[in-house]
């Protein structure tokens, strides 16, 4: 079992870290204030190859793979977790299109995503509930050459910055009655709706998409009719959960760094507080959460790159990493004492960011159901 990263992965980490520190840091205050994604960065990220990290080379990406993607997201997350939140959803759209799209769809929609001409969106969650995918009400009725879309999608990241969306809608009855569509913003009757005001990950836009008798050409059906549930679940398991877990990894890195810096500098009783055992325990616990989360998330990247099915490991990584991020951010706040609850210190923002990762991209409860079902069948 080789736990070392390759030269390629080390260089990748280095260059993305540099990019994030130089390009993302100066935009953070405005992002936190306004909640807006810095769109001017999108092209730069396209040029860097960050957006096309899992896009196959023939469609404008590098196809470096899932572990590379995780490292990219983690390094950006260290600086500002909102950015990889937006980018990981962008990758989700790429994944859905690469895996389930036909040649024309891939040729048309993958390159603009890789280049950063627009942001990618996967819209699953109906007001009826994201955890209840089979309960989706947004409908798509076939009339002639078009499917007519009606309904709303909510809590959709990148909703307002994208020219086209992968939307799951109901074409038939029950769980097998869902289908996936590529809906362009300029189709009549399709538009972004309200913008949400999140307490954390504020540089990633989250909002609504609204469809009122929106005609979607048959050519924009992604995969087959009835494949929608499978597409949604595969997308979440293979790309969404590892993506959110990587955002949480970024948060964990930042949390440890803040806690350590403060502990090494702050003095009480005439000495730095890093000499106090209670503080050392907090630091040790944050450190172990980071190491454990990292191993779990990297494993998913490795399994994906080796084409090994990893639904369980993916659910575990996501659920663990996001909980760990929130738990560790809370501890880091305690390390800071009263400074921790002051807005001018970043730790409180990291806690808010971590809280947002918990329900995003699949709730912890659903992840635990996935794991329980698996574990309960283990010793038959």
């Amino acid at each position, binding site marked *: 079992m080789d736990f070392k990263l390759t030269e390629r992965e080390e260089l990748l980490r280095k260059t993305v870290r540099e990019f994030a520190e130089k390009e993302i840091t100066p935009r953070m205050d405005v992002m936190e204030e306004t909640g807006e994604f810095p769109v001017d960065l999108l092209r730069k990220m396209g040029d860097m190859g960050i957006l096309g990290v899992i896009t196959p080379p023939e469609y404008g990406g590098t196809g470096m793979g899932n572990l590379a993607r995780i490292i990219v997201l983690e390094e950006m997350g260290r600086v500002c977790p909102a950015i990889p939140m937006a980018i990981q959803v962008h990758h989700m759209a790429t994944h859905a299109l690469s895996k389930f799209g036909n040649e024309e769809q891939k040729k048309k929609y993958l390159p603009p995503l890789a280049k950063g001409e627009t942001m990618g969106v996967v819209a699953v969650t109906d007001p009826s509930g994201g955890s209840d995918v089979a309960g989706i009400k947004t409908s798509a009725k076939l009339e002639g050459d078009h499917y007519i879309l009606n309904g709303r999608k909510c809590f959709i990241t990148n909703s307002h910055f994208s020219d086209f969306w992968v939307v799951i809608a109901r074409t038939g009855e029950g769980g097998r009655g869902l289908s996936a569509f590529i809906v362009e913003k300029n189709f009549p009757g399709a538009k972004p709706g309200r913008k949400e005001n999140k307490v954390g990950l504020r540089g990633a836009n989250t909002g609504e998409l609204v469809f009122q008798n929106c005609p979607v050409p048959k050519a924009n059906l992604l995969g087959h009719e009835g494949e929608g549930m499978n597409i949604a679940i595969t997308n979440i398991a293979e790309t969404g959960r590892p993506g959110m877990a990587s955002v949480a990894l970024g948060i964990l890195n930042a949390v440890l760094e803040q806690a350590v810096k403060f502990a090494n*500098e*702050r*003095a009480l009783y005439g000495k730095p507080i890093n000499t106090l055992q209670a503080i050392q325990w907090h630091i040790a616990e944050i450190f172990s959460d980071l190491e454990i989360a990292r191993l779990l998330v990297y494993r998913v990247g490795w399994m994906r790159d080796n084409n090994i099915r990893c639904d369980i490991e993916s659910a575990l990584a996501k659920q663990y990493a996001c909980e760990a991020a929130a738990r560790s951010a809370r501890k880091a706040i305690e390390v800071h004492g009263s*400074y921790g609850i*002051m807005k*001018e*210190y970043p730790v409180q923002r990291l806690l808010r960011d971590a809280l947002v990762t918990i329900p995003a991209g699949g709730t912890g409860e659903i992840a635990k159901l996935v794991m329980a079902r698996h574990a309960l069948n283990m010793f038959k």
Partner: protein
Amino acid sequence: MVQSKIWVFAEQRNGQLAEVGIELLGKALELARPAGWKVASVLAGQSLSGPCERLLSFGADEVFVADHPLLCSYCSQSYAKVLDNLIREHHPEVFLLGATAMGSDLGARLAARLRTGLSAHCIDLELSAEKKLLSVVPGWGGNVLARIYSPFTKPQMATVMPGVFDMPREGNGRGRVIPLDVHLTPADVTYQVLEINRRAVKENGLEKAEVVIAGGAGIGSKVDWQLVEGLSSALKGAVGGTRPPVDENWAKEDQMIGQSGRTIHPKLYIGVGISGQMHHMVGIKGADLIVAINQDPQAPIFELCDLGLVGDFKEILPLLIRAIQDYKA
């Protein structure tokens, strides 16, 4: 017969001697006397009688003068050739230059020509009991100090940072001038200086500022804060402060330096009326030179500074500002 064993390069541009050449002359004389040695300054350029006189007045035992039209402008290869010939003729023990733009360049080429060792950017020099030159050199960003010598090759060379050694006193020069025959052709001058521009120093933000003047609670009032701003202005620096001045509105929020504020790495930091609490000092620990001015001799900042002035800033600052302005005039 040439007697000098320690030679010092007297850097000059357009007849203006660089102070470092004189500082090194002073240090060389200090090192040479106990060893029973003499010291020479080496001048190269054109129309050098003025600089020559000055070097004699600072105590040079001998002044070599290479005065030639082809040396009117510095060029590393032509200067190195002239100095190389001179050194091979008289075999000095030690050759010192300032670690300046010119000195670093010339010293390096010369050391390669002579195949001798050169200790660069020294912050101190000594002569050992065996009369070998020992140089103290910082490395790793100043985190490490090395003592270096080159005992087997001659001359032992070193370049020294300007300002490390004090200027010697002028006196009645009794040294002698040795004019040199310079053998150069135009082909020896391998580049042409087209223009020289003097830079106007700009005011910078705190992070990029090379000079930062910071005030603390001890300033006491908005009126007195103007002294801090005045000092900063005189040194073309940026103004910073601890939390109390910001709370009192003497300074702006973005001028606050400290744990919750910013960390800076200026070359020069002067803290006025600042006691030296941890969170501020952490913000400036990367400064090259830390000067503290405070009334309280027990203030923690005095253990964390390079230069301390114990006294009332209201008295010291106006005098300091005036003296600085006098230098600029």
